[in-house]
């Protein structure tokens, strides 16, 4: 009997058969995420003022990707979402990568024949 009861614990994979127990994250989490985003924004500005050559853009994009990940996982609640949502999120960035890789592999290599 005891283990049957356990079957009624909130299940993040699917809510089927449950009256949708909302996953209410602690309030402090949202402020922590905001603070992290602020720190990363300051870091973006600070690092842009140091001359790293071609690396500047790479670093700026790396920070932006971290910021986007933080927003997606915690503000957009993907971290507590069902696997199906994860698949959509991951696929959307997979297609974006395809778009970037195919575009850049053409345009950014056009002048290679000059060397």
């Amino acid at each position, binding site marked *: 009997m005891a283990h049957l009861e356990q079957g009624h614990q909130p299940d993040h994979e699917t809510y089927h058969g449950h009256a*949708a127990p909302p996953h209410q994250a602690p309030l402090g989490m949202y402020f922590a995420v905001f603070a992290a985003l602020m720190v990363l924004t300051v870091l973006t500005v600070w690092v842009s003022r140091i001359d790293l050559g071609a690396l500047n853009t790479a670093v*700026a994009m790396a920070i932006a990707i971290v910021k*986007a990940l933080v927003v997606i996982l915690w503000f957009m609640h993907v971290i507590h979402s069902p696997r199906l949502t994860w698949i959509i999120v991951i696929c959307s960035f997979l297609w974006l990568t395809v778009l970037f890789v195919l575009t850049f592999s053409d345009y950014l290599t056009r002048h290679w024949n000059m060397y």
Partner: protein
Amino acid sequence: MSDATLSHGAEHAAEPHEHAPHHPFLQHHFEDMGQQHEASTLGMWFFVAQEILFFGALFAAYFVYREMYPDAWKAGSHHQNWQIGAINTIVLIGSSLTMALAVWGAQGAKRKFTTLMLVLTLLLGGIFVGVKGYEYAEHIHEGLFPGANFTYVEKVPELTQGVQLFMIFYFTMTGLHALHMVIGAGLLLYFIRRTWRGDFGPEYYSPIEIMGLYWHFVDIVWIFLFPLLYLV
């Protein structure tokens, strides 16, 4: 015996309907609020996925032309006031925080708190678009609006046309971003009304959650636009 068992089983299956009336916002093609919530958020993520590709194509084009005209991109970026851009970034991330808090409030049936957070989100979004309008006015005043009115001449005149191209990207990308903000503001007004009316609570907060997904997505676009347009 078996008849009794069967009828007992049927009674049991019908139980939730007899004892717990449907939530007023449960649509008939969903089994329960949980399934409805899952379907709504998943559908919104499909929309966000195509928005990622929509803006993604613009970013790809941006990088292609930046590779072709790196010096013009640097010069064009110097026309942007990075302090204003940084302040607007803080304002927009702040609006994402209030939006996330609104979802939190809706989950906990805090009607007044949620309404307040949505109003703050709308306010911060309004400040963002207002500041953007000020920046646009400055650019137009300096003759940096692409087209017939582009009168700005760079110190290195050869860069001028490249800077105009940069400004095309600047106005297209920030313009589409601002358009998303304006649409979001309209949606916020609608949800402020519904929240105040008391539509949302722990059982039903999907619309606020979905509004949040849209708002946070628009925030993410700006997170990339800021370093690419202001800090080259």
